[in-house]
């Protein structure tokens, strides 16, 4: 069964450093997402991406965050200058047709990257 993969599984960084979290979505999927989950809290939406541009972003996704699809397989989340409060599990997800009025779809999540900011 196809699955979303993420690397690294665990990333430790110093406050102020840049990190890039990587995801390989399911190959025929066109919509990509990043979510995060702070320990013990809800899964929170960060951003959705389609056709090489951001479709929607949350208030969490400020100027310190960026996403990119550098090639035909990878989808990355960059945090330019990490803060202590960025420590969380980051989940990538992908879907085939996206969520839009009149349609339905399923988002498939990766195993996550645990980001620890010291």
């Amino acid at each position, binding site marked *: 069964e196809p699955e979303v993969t993420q690397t690294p599984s665990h990333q430790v960084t110093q406050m102020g450093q840049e990190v890039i979290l990587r995801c390989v979505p399911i190959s025929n999927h066109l919509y990509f997402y990043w979510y995060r989950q702070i320990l013990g809290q809800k899964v929170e939406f960060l951003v959705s991406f*389609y056709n090489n541009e951001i479709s*929607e972003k949350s208030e969490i996704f400020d100027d310190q965050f960026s996403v990119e699809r550098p090639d035909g397989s990878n989808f990355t989340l960059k945090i330019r200058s990490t803060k202590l409060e960025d420590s969380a599990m980051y989940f990538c997800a992908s879907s085939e047709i996206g969520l*839009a*009025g*009149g349609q*339905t779809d*399923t988002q498939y999540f990766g*195993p*996550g990257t645990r980001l620890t900011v010291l």
Partner: protein
Amino acid sequence: LARTTQPISMDSYEGQEVNITCSHNNIATNDYITWYQQFPSQGPRFIIQGYKTKVTNEVASLFIPADRKSSTLSLPRVSLSDTAVYYCLVGPTSGTYKYIFGTGTRLKVLA
């Protein structure tokens, strides 16, 4: 986006059937109901999705009444490995691409 309400936690014993009910009173006409399972330190895993009536797959059943204001996830004969958090999500609505996760239901299966 339609809000959902689920019990915070449930306990069950191995071999029992578990039913988790989710309330979504303001579900929109185009919304589907989707359930995910999440183990600690893992990504949410899709379980089942439906629009109305009953849907069954190899792991669960989903019951949706005619008014669609609630839904019930049924897990037959649970095992210890079914201990997890279960999320009920409703969507989409026009123009939005995000899932809104609630706190979910923490199911604990006891031996």
